[in-house]
């Protein structure tokens, strides 16, 4: 059989063209190219839409604090995975001493720590500048927490002495690596001015590389980090607000770590859909879930109505909805906080368990035998809306008809803070786990939102007896004494019931099994991490 091969220019060109197109298509489709895990690069999927600010003294949003925690250091830090005064270890300060009256803290600083991007050596001047900035700057979000600082002296380059106005035995937690405690670079702030918030200069294991609006922030390893060169070359934090996209990206291992949804079914679905078994960690301290009952909205000024609402709440419903992420609680402060009142310490008459009959009886005693109607505003954000809808359902069972006006999150915040709208206000707050943080923000007289100093006192509550107990607690040096007065504050709150605490919500975070955080995290336990993202250290690796 004769078989002839006719090659001409056209056929050769055609062949080349076709193979070129095939190779190009194969490359585009090549899964190994698409999702190859890049060695030394950690991909983190955040649920926020965009960066707000990377200035540690201003930032409060979770997507910002997550990034900040890798760039900055404090004088001291919590051992990764733990958050308590007992778990504090040296960071930028090598050692510290406290005066007997708890009014003076002296720090010896680490020598030879370098600021990122050639801004020179870290010294006591930076510490002074930083603490004064967080205490005095109008832009500083954390002014109230640092207002106790009276004077800062810097005897030499490596020594800082902080004098306090009133004794504070746990001040060391204030200057830890978190929020206002992060030390900022004096020289860089002077050079960069307002743009420091977009080009932060810190001393941490990773330095700022690039920000792409609404897309991502990337950090690169700081080769001069005092703890040694980090194992990771780069961390990329991507903004993936769409929960479904984040889930698929995680399942496909495009991202190594992601913020999860506070929903047990969702979490197990992601774990089951993933190839390698990823790990789910619950990051705490949990967000304290509270319904504040606005006093200025009648009949919420009536104690019986407030107690009826407390009795109408069934915490088991929340447990069913959120799963292990939710920890029910009857006291005002989460149980893992220092000074929290334990369930067995709450007097029986103040333990408002789920009791619809009692709730109806209280309503009748208050003159609302046939029930009552209330109206409030709520954020469309999934967690708030879920909480409010469950609450509405429970209240309706005792005859309280609550109308929910759903607003986008920004408008809701404006409505409750600026316009003082609403009647029942849901809040979820996580702070340094000691009772004073939540009491100061929500229940002392100065916190009342109707006052100029008011931050989150949505219940518009003020009781001089509570303020006195709170002041006595924070001035007490002996931890037992502090705890005793904090518990007294909580008993007063349970008597007056300005707000109903439901429990606390942890933040679920998922990590691929190949992520090595560089420190031990026991599966199934709550990992305490204030930025609500893992701390990435020089030892973290993928």
């Amino acid at each position, binding site marked *: 059989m004769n078989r002839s091969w006719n090659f001409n220019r056209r056929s050769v060109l055609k062949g080349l063209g076709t193979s070129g197109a095939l190779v190009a298509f194969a490359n585009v489709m090549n899964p190994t190219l698409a999702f190859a895990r890049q060695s030394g690069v950690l991909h983190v999927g955040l649920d926020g839409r965009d960066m707000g600010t990377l200035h540690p003294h201003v930032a409060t949003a979770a997507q910002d604090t997550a990034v900040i925690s890798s760039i900055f250091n404090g004088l001291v830090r919590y051992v990764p995975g733990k958050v308590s005064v007992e778990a504090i270890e040296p960071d930028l300060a090598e050692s510290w001493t406290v005066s007997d009256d708890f009014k003076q803290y002296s720090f010896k600083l680490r020598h030879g720590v370098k600021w990122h991007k050639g801004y020179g050596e870290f010294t006591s001047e930076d510490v002074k500048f930083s603490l004064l900035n967080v205490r005095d700057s109008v832009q500083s979000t954390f002014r109230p927490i640092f207002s106790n600082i009276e004077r800062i002296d810097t005897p030499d380059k490596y020594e800082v002495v902080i004098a306090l106005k009133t004794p504070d035995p746990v001040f060391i937690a204030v200057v830890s690596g978190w929020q206002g405690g992060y030390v900022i670079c004096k020289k860089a702030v002077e050079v960069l001015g307002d743009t420091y918030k977009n080009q932060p200069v810190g001393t941490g294991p990773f330095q700022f590389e690039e920000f792409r*609006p*609404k897309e991502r922030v990337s950090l690169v390893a700081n080769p001069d980090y005092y703890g040694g060169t980090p194992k990771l070359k780069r961390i990329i934090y991507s903004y993936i607000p769409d929960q479904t996209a984040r889930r698929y*990206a995680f399942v496909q291992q*495009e991202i190594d770590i992601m913020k999860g949804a506070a929903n047990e079914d969702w979490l197990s679905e992601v774990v089951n859909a993933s190839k390698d078994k990823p790990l789910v960690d619950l990051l705490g301290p949990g967000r304290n879930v509270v319904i504040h009952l606005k006093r200025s909205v009648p009949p919420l000024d009536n104690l019986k109505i407030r107690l009826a609402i407390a009795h109408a709440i069934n915490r088991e419903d929340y447990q069913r909805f959120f799963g292990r992420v939710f920890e029910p609680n009857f006291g005002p402060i989460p149980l893992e906080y220092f000074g929290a009142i334990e369930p067995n310490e709450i007097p029986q008459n103040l333990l408002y368990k789920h009791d619809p009959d009692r709730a109806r009886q209280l309503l009748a005693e208050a003159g609302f035998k046939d029930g009552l109607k209330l109206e409030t505003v709520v954020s469309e954000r999934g967690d708030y809306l879920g909480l409010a809808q469950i609450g509405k359902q429970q209240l309706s069972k005792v005859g309280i008809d609550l109308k929910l006006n759903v607003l986008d999150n920004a408008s809701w915040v404006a409505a409750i803070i*600026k316009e003082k709208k609403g009647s029942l206000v849901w809040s979820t707050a996580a702070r340094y786990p000691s009772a004073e943080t939540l009491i100061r923000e929500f229940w002392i007289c100065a916190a009342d939102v109707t006052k100029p100093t008011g*931050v989150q006192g949505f219940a518009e509550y003020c009781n001089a007896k509570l303020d006195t107990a709170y002041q006595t607690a924070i001035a007490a040096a002996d931890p037992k004494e502090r705890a005793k007065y904090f518990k007294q504050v909580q008993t007063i709150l349970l008597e007056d019931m300005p707000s109903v605490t439901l429990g606390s919500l942890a933040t679920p975070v998922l990590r691929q099994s190949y992520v090595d955080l560089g420190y031990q995290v026991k599966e199934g336990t709550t990992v305490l991490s204030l930025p609500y993202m893992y701390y990435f250290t020089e030892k973290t690796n993928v």
Partner: protein
Amino acid sequence: MSRVIVARIVFMLAAIFVVLTALFFGIRLGVGDPTIAIQGTYATAESMQALREALGLDKPLWEQYLIYMAGLLRGDLGVSLQNGQPVLTQILAVVPYTLDLTVVGLLIGVVLGVPLGFVAAVRRNTKLDHVIRVMTLSGVSVPPFIMGYFLIIIFVIGLGLFPVAGGGELDEPLSRMRYLFLPGLSLGLIMTSYITRLARTTVLEILSKDFIRTAKAKGLDQRTILVHHVLRLSLVTIVTLVGLYATITIGSSVVIETVFSRPGVGRLIVGAVAQSDYMVVQGTIIFYAAFVGIVNLLVDLTYTIIDPRIRYE
């Protein structure tokens, strides 16, 4: 002709000016205070006032307007209230991603839609026509995000072929194409449905014209009639409407960019609206208005090429 183009550009600028002015005052009077969106629940009356002063929001509205317009004339779109970055830089950084998406979406739409519509019209009321019609009806009825998830389920979860979140690196063509495939296909399939339906209707209308009957009577073969008489004439209508669809593409791309967490002008505006970031909203609206204006101008000019009888005086 050039006078017409100049007049159209002047008209476009005037339209942008009106849109922008309405937006400037509307958004400030309607949306409320962005300082709350920025500071969240930590906001106090004092800290909000400080931030308002720092952002220049304490000035009277007319003064803010004049400052903004003066900046605009210098090509300065202002600075994002949320992240402090210049608005123009942010838009320019994401425009290539949006252009990639819209161009690929439209291209797929035209390449698949015109022939499909043509075939459906010529084979009217046959099984093939019914299949095409049902498919295109589903295509226009399915919301863009469902289309996105549908493709994710097939290509990402099922076949593991493409990445799901992000836009790839602009300077790496392969990475850029890989991240473009699924969003481009989602948009392309939606556009295909629109364009198929449009092409079918247009061709059917032309087929019923007298001159087609005359052509048949003259004994011209089917192929000549379709290619020389029907196709050419139908393109005038199709190009006009495809031009209009380019603006629909922008609307769908907002959703698709969100589903695929892809950088782009759409995602920029959605984020800015959620965060009450006036500056970015204004900047992106100017971009959209200019885009729509330019597309319309190009469509008008294309007529004269396709149909030489059309003249602008």
